[in-house]
């Protein structure tokens, strides 16, 4: 695993995430959220789980980001602006960050290097999905169907 690649992707992701959390204009924040997701997908590629990275790009950027953008367009009364950072929220976020960082840096067992593994092919993922995880797969299918129908019902205009 290349450490320059890791550093670059980490900087890109965190900068884009920070921009998404603090930018005033809605559209710019959404687009930097999409860039942050590309960064996370790059991390997945670095970690050897390419399938998950591709699924993330497909689902999040291809679907969720487009949905968010459409919703911003459809709810456009107050165009664009949002008020500044709420300091109480920022303090709480920094406190949570500090606490979790302390936990991560304190535990010695996580400063390990990556072991060599067999490449995770799509074939293995498919086999695992169909043998060990077949019930979660069906449940997720049902969940997605019900979410689809629910979202449609919520947004449908009532017939006069």
């Amino acid at each position, binding site marked *: 695993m290349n450490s320059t690649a890791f550093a670059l992707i980490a900087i890109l992701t965190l900068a884009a995430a920070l921009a998404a959390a603090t930018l005033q204009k809605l*559209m*710019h924040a959404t687009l930097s959220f999409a860039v942050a997701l590309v960064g996370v997908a790059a991390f997945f590629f670095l970690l050897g789980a390419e399938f998950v990275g*591709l699924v993330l790009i*497909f689902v999040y*950027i*291809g679907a969720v*980001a487009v949905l968010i953008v459409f919703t911003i367009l459809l709810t456009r009364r107050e165009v664009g602006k949002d008020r500044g950072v709420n300091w109480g929220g920022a303090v709480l976020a920094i406190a949570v960050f500090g606490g979790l960082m302390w936990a991560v840096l304190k535990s010695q067992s996580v400063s390990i290097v990556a072991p060599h593994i067999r*490449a995770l092919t799509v074939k293995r993922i498919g086999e695992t999905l169909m043998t060990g995880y077949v019930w979660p797969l069906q449940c997720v299918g049902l969940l997605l169907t019900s979410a689809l129908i629910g979202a449609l019902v919520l947004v449908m205009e009532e017939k006069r």
Partner: protein
Amino acid sequence: MSKSVDQIFVIAKQWLLSWLTGAPDWIVQIASSLLNIFTLLAVFLTLFALMSVLERKILGRIQNRYGPNRVGPFGLLQPVADGIKMLIKEDIVPERADKLVHFLAPILIAAAAILALGVIPYGRNMTPFTIDGGILFFFAIGSTTELAVFMAGWGSNNKFSMLGAMRAIAQMISYELPLIITVLPVVMVVGSLTPDRIVAAQAGYTFNIVPRWFVFTPWGAAAFILFFVSGLVESNRTPFDVPEGESEIVAGHMTEYSGFKYATFFMAEYIGMFAITGLAATLFLGGWHSPVQALEFIPSYIWFFAKLSALLFVYIWLRGTLPRTRIDQIMNFAWKFMLPMSFTCVIAAAVWHYAGRGLRGWLWSLVVVASAYTILSMLLDTHRKFAPRVYRFAE
């Protein structure tokens, strides 16, 4: 001898890389990738230039006129003139447009289109980048095109652009489903998402005459037609070019772009077309395999580009022949016809596989596809009768 002609590009690349034998591993990797990328760009940008003039000439011939024939022999140097024209045009950006988003949109669309070209096998051992989930990569990159189209429409701060962008995205999202579900039978039958394996699974000939391409099976033929039509919609080509219909919304999401940025949009659309037809050739038409066993000495990349050219000719033919469809007709077609038919293709492929992959499987899957098609046609029939045709001037 024919094998070395077939592998000539691979041999050339290995000879070029042999100049770097002493270098560390990552330099050789980067050099190899750069060679692939440059070759890909050179080939496809030339093809784009050639296609832009060939399309106009073929459209002209369909409409009983010559196409461009002034610049160069038979007008073939027209892209040079077009390129110079596009480059020297003034780059107008609207004052209240969102500068960053307006600038990034064409770059993102072009980048997505060119990235998608990287996983298609162009010949024997000639895939630029072998990724394990190659087909998924192709569709994931294709789905980022929608966000870029939206950026183009919104960044221009123009109502026509916004409307065009929303129509374009609605159309592209609706047809992404049939596009991907029709690929599913192929992936299911081959058992892999890698384009190389899918091409390798279509090798050989049944009875030594008919090649084992997936298009010669009933589910494959139906899936190919559905994939082709969905590809037409994804590239915003006539008859589905509502997002860029000149008579309706000026140029849709590309209205406020002038000069080189418009050329970039244009290039991205054509390269998207190349990518989709390349994938159609890979998945259904046997990739770089030859259709006749006697002609196997012709190099594999020639066969691939012949198939690509045939499909592109059909694209141009459809553009010259069919009128534009309305946006609600497009949506109805996607959700009410193409989606159920693509599910039927999946079921038919499973039937073909489980009835043995021979004649019995062929006939049973034909029954499945034909019955689904008949039932859908009867359900979706609008019972509209047209008045008898009256010609006033033609004899």
